[in-house]
Structure formats: structure tokens, C-alpha cells
């Protein structure tokens, strides 16, 4: 049995063909989906996202060309400027939503996925998994990307725009993060954790509790 997280309707779980989506029969919320190779794809995309994230944070996003001089800014420098301008709350908000939260999400994904790939359940799996779920809505890479584009258009009449490496990295990161969110299957993760724990000789916690619920 499964309960819809949006309307609480009790429903029977069904087996899905690959690529299928199960929606709640009453309110239409997506209950779960099955992706081919969900696990391996998430892992591969996470590895890619980490590389892109590092690039996006270590290189300048954009530069302005004025009188033969190029002035560039990185993401961290943007945050620093806001902080120095006595806009600490806005600086923290930008820092949290574009750097901290995506970093935490990627870190959590790596921590969860790599040991599971090797057939082991990482310690504190549940806490890290919950942290990832909490952090996810606050990572706003795609909104930041649009913000950069809008500000570029706004400044284009002032000076020449020099797109930096980080701009492309951010654009790519935006798609990769969206792909991770689409591909990652929490049910599959929990099933793998259970399997790994069983293999390691632990008592299968989820098995007993589902049995109790029935």
C-alpha cells in the first residue's frame, strides 16, 4: 500500500513498466516513476554536476569591457560586494541559494550514491537523505542563470559584455541539476539500502514495518 503525499489517499502499489509514472487516482499527484538505469544515471550526472559546480564557482561569470579594460566578477565576489554594501541579508540569501544549497545537495548525493554503488549502505543514510530533501527547493541555479542574463541585457548598453567560463558552466549545471532531480528515484535508493543492509547482516527494518502496516 502507498498513500498519496498530497491528498492522503490509500492506494495499492503497482508494478511499472520502465519509464512509467504512477499518478494518484484522486488528485493526480505523481506518486513514483520508474526510470531505466535511474541509479547509474544519477551517479553519472552527480559526477558531472560536481565538475560544473567547481568550474562555475572558480571562474568569472561575466566581465564588462570598458575603455580597453575588462572587469570581471565571480559568484563569490558578487556575494562579497553585497555583504560589504551592508546588504548582509541579501548577500546571505544569494550565497545560500546559489552556492551553499547546491553544494550541500551535491555532497549529499555523492555521499549516498557512491557507497551504494559499491554495495554498502553509508552510515547516517537517513539523515543525509532527509537533508538532501530539505535543501533541494532552496538551490536556485536556474533562477540565478536567468538573473544573470537579465542583468547582462540591462548592462549591455553601458559596456561590452564578456561572458566568462562560469556562465557556460552555470548554464550546463542548470540542466544537469534538473536532470538529477528528474532521474533520482528515492524508492530505488531505499530498496538498495535495504538490500545492502541485509547483505551486511542487519535486520531489514523497512521489511518489518511494511509488514506491520499491512
Amino acid at each position: 500500500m502507498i498513500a498519496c503525499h498530497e491528498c492522503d489517499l490509500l492506494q495499492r502499489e503497482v508494478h511499472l513498466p520502465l519509464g512509467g509514472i504512477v499518478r494518484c487516482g484522486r488528485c493526480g499527484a505523481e506518486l513514483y516513476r520508474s526510470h531505466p538505469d535511474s541509479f547509474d544515471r544519477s551517479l553519472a550526472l552527480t559526477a558531472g554536476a560536481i565538475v560544473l559546480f567547481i568550474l562555475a564557482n572558480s571562474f568569472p561569470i561575466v566581465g564588462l569591457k570598458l575603455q580597453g579594460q575588462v572587469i570581471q566578477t565571480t559568484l563569490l565576489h558578487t556575494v562579497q560586494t553585497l555583504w560589504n554594501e551592508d546588504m548582509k541579508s541579501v548577500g546571505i540569501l544569494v550565497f545560500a541559494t546559489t552556492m551553499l544549497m547546491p553544494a550541500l545537495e551535491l555532497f549529499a548525493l555523492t555521499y549516498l550514491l557512491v557507497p551504494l554503488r559499491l554495495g554498502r549502505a553509508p552510515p547516517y543514510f537517513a539523515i543525509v537523505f532527509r537533508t538532501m530533501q530539505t535543501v533541494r527547493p532552496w538551490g536556485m541555479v536556474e533562477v540565478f542563470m536567468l538573473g544573470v542574463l537579465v542583468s547582462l541585457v540591462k548592462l549591455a548598453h553601458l559596456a561590452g559584455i564578456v561572458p566568462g567560463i562560469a556562465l557556460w558552466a552555470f548554464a550546463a549545471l542548470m540542466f544537469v541539476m534538473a536532470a538529477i532531480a528528474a532521474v533520482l528515484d528515492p524508492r530505488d535508493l531505499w530498496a538498495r539500502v535495504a538490500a545492502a543492509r541485509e547483505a551486511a547482516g542487519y535486520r531489514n527494518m523497512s521489511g518489518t514495518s511494511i509488514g506491520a502496516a499491512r
Partner: protein
Amino acid sequence: MTACSAASQGMLVCHACGLLSRAPAHSHEISCPRCGDHVHFRKPDSIARTWALLITAMILYIPANVLPMMHTSSLFGSQSDTIMSGVVYFWTSGSWYLALIIFFASIMVPMLKMIALVLLLVTTQRRSRWQLQQRTKLYRVVEFVGRWSMLDIYVVAVIVALVQLQALATITPGPGAIAFGGVVVLTMFAAMAFDPRLMWDSLEEERG
């Protein structure tokens, strides 16, 4: 149709890991046996919390729109830009598509989001069974779209950082940016605090 909610059967679903478990009699809250998260039948004090966050956001929405987001000072004088004047600037300078994006992301989305949450709260409190499916859909849209209001904050951040370094003009962020950031964060929290399952509970009450 024998549709019944998990709560009516004494079962609750974990929001973190999706596990359905049975609650011991007379308990309203358990720890999920699989992931250890707190599991409730319904989010605690959902309606009151959502109202509190929403009303705060509504109050902040006024300074967010009235106070300037940016101050520009250059050789040619200084000027302050609110969100709306930014939209007007883009509109008159020919970038009407950008004017539309900012207008929607910064003015329409927060406003519609607050109106939608009020509608959801009021209908839920009245235990209305009107348009339950559509209202759930509305909730989903509100949850999804809220983040896009951060757009203007990022625009201010990037412009301030880039133009700071120029000799010909300095741009500094204005107090409107703080209020606006507050509106976005508070409405996101408000949407998270709301429990859409409360809407569907009106169906059960009627039956028995």
C-alpha cells in the same frame, strides 16, 4: 468507490522517504521506522503557520514594491529604481520581453502566489469540497513557481557587483531588495507549511 485516506485507517506516510506506517493508538506523531523523520498525520498547525507566514509576506510586499531596489549614481546625477520602474525602463527601451519576464517574476508571481494561498487557506478552513482537484493543482503550481521570484534579487546582485568596479557610475542595492528577498523566502515557507491533505479531509468528514 471505496477511497479512504491513510489517516482514517490510522496510517501515516513519511514525507521524507515515503514509507507508510501504522501509528500506535492515540498517538499523533511517530518517528518513521525507516528514516527516523518525524511523521505526522497532518503537518502540525499547518493552517495557523501558513497564515502567519503569509500575512508577514503580505506586509513586506508593500516596502518591496515601494522602496528602491537599486541606487544608481553617476556623473549625470543619481536615480533610484523600484521593481516597477525597472519594468518600465525595459519596456520603454524596447526590451519588452525582459519587461514581461521581470513583471511576471517579480510582481505577478508573488501577488498571485499570495492570493492563491489565501484562497487555499480560506476554502480549507471552511471545509469546502469545491474543486478539490483544481485546488490541489493550484497548490502544486504555487510550490513550483515561487522560486522564480528570486530573479530580481539576482539581477540586483550581479549588476551591483559588476558596476561597483566602474569609475563612471556606482550602483548600490536599496532597502527594497531586503524586503523583496523576505517576501520570496516567506512565501516559500508559507507554501511548505500548508498541507494539501487538509483540503481532502473534508470528504471524509461528510461520510462519517
